[in-house]
């Protein structure tokens, strides 16, 4: 079907042309009516045009692009972590990176000397010594002799962990593990002695690193690792997805109670800072940050800036200046360097170091002429009319 005028390559008549429209019938006539009723577009008003103009002039796009990339990388990282955590939890796979870090060259596990097995009973007798209970879910693994059942119960002391972060003894090293115990501590006299594994006294930090060669290799039960990852994942879910700081704090409290010296404790501490921020508890967040040993890389740089800002807010200017200087000394991203430079300038100014403050302000204006702390020109849209 072509228009009323001409064939396929001739100019068709416009549907809105009154003379052509009079000859149209059926669907084409209704189509012409539809076209005729189509409203004229209004475009954007002056405010909309001014907004677009401001976006075109500002550096927003590059920032947006960077934020996109960072978000993408963070998402990929988080997905990977969650995947590994799930695999560890449901498929029973060991966490590869954790085992790699904690035990680089796992030697064959030296088990404590087993008490000599009872002489007579053959294999079936070991599998089911008591006749009555029909395969309980919590039954201990078969090889364990009855006297050794509580062996996995005693808390693994922090002192024998090969890569425990920091050498400071944990405030609650042994007693806090109690909630994990399926049975209350049973000081049965038949239990194997285990002298090197569980020293009765509180472990001293100096004794921690050089573990004697005769010590059996401590191994973190995969269940504990999976539980750590699961709790942390739950807390991060509350934080990132639901933005629920209170729920995240509850989970993190649970984490601290169950895993006081967990492998993921540093990550949990950082998540706690995020949760406190989310709840607006800035001073608690500062106190939490004070307890952290922040490194000059990665997310710790951002936390250093935040800690500096909170310290400055609380009046601890010299400590804040140290934080900012550490960030500026590292290869921090521009957004963090901008905050740190401005923060240090303000701290120096407040402390009466006028020369230092002037130097920092000048450096700020030079590095970030259109930065968020720089004075902006008042005009958004050029005055000429559109």
């Amino acid at each position, binding site marked *: *079907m*072509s*228009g009323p005028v001409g064939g*396929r*390559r*001739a*100019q*068709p008549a*416009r*549907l*809105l*042309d*009154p003379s052509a429209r009079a000859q149209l019938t*059926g*669907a*084409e006539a*209704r*189509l012409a009516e*539809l*076209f005729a*009723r*189509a*409203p*004229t*577009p*209004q*475009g*954007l*008003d002056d405010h*909309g*045009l001014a*907004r*677009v*103009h401001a*976006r*075109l002039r500002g550096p927003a*796009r590059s920032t947006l692009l960077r934020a996109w990339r960072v978000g993408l990388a963070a998402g990929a990282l988080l997905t990977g972590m969650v995947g590994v955590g799930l695999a560890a939890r449901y498929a029973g796979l060991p966490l590869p990176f954790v085992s790699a870090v904690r035990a680089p060259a796992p030697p064959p596990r030296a088990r404590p000397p087993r008490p000599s097995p009872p002489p007579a009973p053959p294999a079936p007798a070991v599998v089911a010594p008591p006749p009555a209970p029909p395969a309980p879910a919590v039954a201990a693994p078969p090889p364990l002799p009855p006297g050794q059942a509580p062996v996995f119960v005693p808390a693994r002391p922090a002192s024998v962990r090969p890569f425990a972060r920091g050498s400071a003894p944990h405030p609650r090293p042994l007693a806090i593990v109690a909630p994990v115990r399926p049975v209350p501590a049973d000081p049965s006299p038949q239990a194997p002695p285990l002298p090197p594994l569980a020293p009765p006294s509180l472990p001293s930090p100096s004794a921690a690193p050089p573990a004697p060669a005769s010590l059996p290799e401590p191994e973190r039960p995969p269940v504990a690792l999976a539980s750590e990852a699961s709790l942390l994942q739950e807390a991060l879910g509350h934080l990132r997805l639901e933005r629920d700081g209170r729920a995240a704090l509850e989970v993190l409290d649970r984490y601290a109670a169950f895993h006081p010296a967990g492998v993921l404790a540093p990550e949990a501490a950082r998540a706690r800072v995020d949760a406190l921020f989310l709840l607006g508890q800035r001073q608690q967040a500062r106190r939490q940050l004070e307890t952290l040993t922040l490194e000059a890389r990665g997310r710790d740089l951002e936390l250093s800036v935040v800690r500096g800002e909170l310290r400055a807010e609380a009046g601890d200017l010299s400590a804040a200046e140290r934080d900012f200087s550490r960030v500026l000394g590292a290869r921090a991203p521009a957004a963090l360097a901008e905050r740190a430079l401005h923060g240090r300038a303000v701290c120096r100014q407040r402390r009466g170091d006028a020369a230092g403050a002037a130097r920092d302000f000048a450096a700020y204006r030079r590095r970030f002429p259109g930065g968020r702390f720089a004075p902006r020109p008042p005009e958004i849209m*050029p005055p*000429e*009319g*559109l």
Partner: protein
Amino acid sequence: MSRTVAQPSPAARSLRVVADASGALDLDTLYRRHASQVARWAERLAGPGYDIEDVVHDVFLVAQRRQREWRGQAKASTWLYEITIRVVQRRRRTRRRWRLIPWRREQAEAGWPTSAVPVSPAATPGELYERRTTTALLYELLDGLDDKYRTALILFELEGLAGREIAELTGASLANVWVRITRARSELARRMQAREQERPR
């Protein structure tokens, strides 16, 4: 050509006017003169459910990026029109791809609240409703067409451009433009008929 309602503005000047002495493009001036026009073209070409501010933003970003390619052989308005067409086509393609992604599908179908100026605030609710339904029906039919047919038809019927201008903007020959328009109308009429049979008035 009898209808010249929405032809490129007669005030549109050659891009040479907005180029400074060194030949560099003065994008600020270009924006001041043409942004409002670009927004209307974008609204017409994209239809409801697209954020016109974003489209205009993209058009001028592309103009900024491509300013070296411009040789001064076309009017500024023609050049911007061409960019607008491509930007809208790209957005429509993206939107179509989003329909394949489960968590994006709803957004792709519902669209974004448009940033264009609400039509005639003095209109009665009945008039507003009628406009909205008319526009929705028109673009629902148009969206079923291939992009090249859809663009040619909108430019010819709604924008009132001449065949030669459409050929210049879309990079097709004049004969091809007529073929596209004819086929687009034919397809549109067929769709309308099918729709009426499906849901009799």
